[in-house]
């Protein structure tokens, strides 16, 4: 990866504490590596009909990104509780009142295909199913 103008170190280095630490047995940042086939599998799971050229591009890029974020595993966080909100909320309730929904026509107006006042959907099962 080439250094970026105006940066004293290549940006990829900012992800790692140091090259040394990345290779010490205690600093477990190693990851299995992401193959082209694995990226194709991820794309299928994510319902993305990626092209062959994209597979070549993404396989390299995702491997570098995942290799960098894998250092999250260095942190000893054993029995620490996870956080998802600055001010944790519990049991968010509201009165059980009926409120108007959006008008059907307003909602269907944005749909790619409509039939008989409903969303028209392609067949759910393929030929082989």
């Amino acid at each position, binding site marked *: 990866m080439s250094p970026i103008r105006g940066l004293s170190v290549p940006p990829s280095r900012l992800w790692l504490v140091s090259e040394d630490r990345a290779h010490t047995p205690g600093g477990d940042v190693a990851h299995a590596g992401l193959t082209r086939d694995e990226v194709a599998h991820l794309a299928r799971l994510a319902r993305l009909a990626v092209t062959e050229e994209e597979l070549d591009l993404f396989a390299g890029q995702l491997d570098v*990104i*995942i290799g960098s974020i894998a250092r999250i595993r260095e942190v000893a966080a054993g029995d620490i509780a996870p956080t998802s909100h600055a001010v944790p909320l519990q049991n968010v309730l509201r009165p059980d009142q009926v409120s108007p929904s959006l008008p059907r026509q307003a909602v269907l107006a944005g749909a*790619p295909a409509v039939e008989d006042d409903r969303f028209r959907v392609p067949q759910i099962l393929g030929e082989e199913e």
Partner: protein
Amino acid sequence: MAALYELDAAQTAQAIAAGQASAVDVARAHLDRITEVDGDVQAFLHVDSDGALAAARDVDARRAAGEPLGPLAGVPLAMKDVVVTAGLPTTSGSKILQGWIPPYDATITRRVKEAGIVMLGKTNMDEFAMGSSTENSAYQVTRNPWDLSRVPGGSSGGSSAAVAAHLAPLSVGTDTGGSIRQPAAVTGIVGHKPTYGTVSRYGLIAFSSSLDQAGPFGRTVLDTALLHQVLAGHDPADSTSIPQAGPDVVAAARDGARGDLTGLRVGVVTELTGASGGYQQGVLEKFRDAVAILQKLGAEVVEVSCPHFDYALAAYYLIAPSECSSNLARFDAVRYGLRAGDDGARSLEDVMSLTREQGFGPEVKRRIMIGTYALSSGYYDAYYGQAQKVRTLIAGDFATAFGQVDVLVSPTSPFVAFGIGERTADPMAMYVNDLCTLPASLAGTPAISVPCGLSDEAGPALPVGLQIMAPAMADDRCYRVGAAFEAAYLAENGPVLRHIQTLGAGR
């Protein structure tokens, strides 16, 4: 008198309230300015001239009828295209939503309208707010009004460019990892990310639900506070909305402008001041000057270490992609947006895959795949689960620091605005833009960026931002310290934006 588009929001509201200008005059002045300048800047995806003039006429009619008007009545605003607006195109910068007209208003859209604010249109952004340069927009590249060959930051780059180029005195952005603060910094304006949960997310097209937070841009700290006050407030339609009133940020901005910070304890974050390299020298110099100004105002400055901030990038680039891979599953070619390849023979699954392939850009695809990987069975605990725990450690670092100091400060971004195309080939060169802004995103705490000078290290003189971070629900501290700093900076140097190049007729 200055041209109407040159006035800041507070001055504009005052001029309208005093009858020196009508809201229609103000709206026209900005629409004309957009016609003249936005061909160069490309901040707007959609300009709603008719809607803006109708809203302005309504404000004028209400004023004529003697109705009490809010403090921003008649003031124009640019809305980021991630916020849904009934009857106005809303794309989130993505081809998958091209031509979609939402059937409802986001809560913040409704609040803006109810305040009598005049919405001029929708601004460009990185697709689904994923990016730091607005180059990931599927529609156009927005240019930094300081130098049209450079980016305006991102993901709210249309909103930052609009305010810096005087196309609107106010705009709304959203900040998931820094998308308000970094664009504010690199365009020389003020931007604030509120405490997570204080501004409703209802009607924001979701990227990363546990991080997304909308907030204000302005050319002054007071203007930004005035818009913050309009946006914030509990909303039963958002279950993460905090059911209590936030602090009075307008009072805090006015109080800060008096310029006395005696007794305030300020912490300089060791991990965010470039000890490990990677920060431009010009940015660090302006940051040190800013800290000296705070000291001169009476603040006591100490250095504070937040060791887990070093893991913020890794945690963020696991959490945000994971949540986006789930959120963007809603783009299934059924209820709204694009549908591709529906030839009557293909299955729903194939149509969905072809639609998403055609409708999403490369950064969105990368993040969806990383999120899919990180949430896979067998990896969940090691990645997403671990990243959520690291958030707790980062929040713990903040808690420890705020035991010793009232606010924390750092540069907003390690770099000034970079050139268009300079970082697009390497996703990680883009990700490091968020280095300084991510900790407050992950902890859900508030942070503001205020202009603190110009650096000519990368060529032309370009703006640098000072980030001021405060504890959850203490957004008022950001505004108080920001306003005090701004007043002192102005007294010494005049406004940063005075140095922006002239666009339009003066060129």
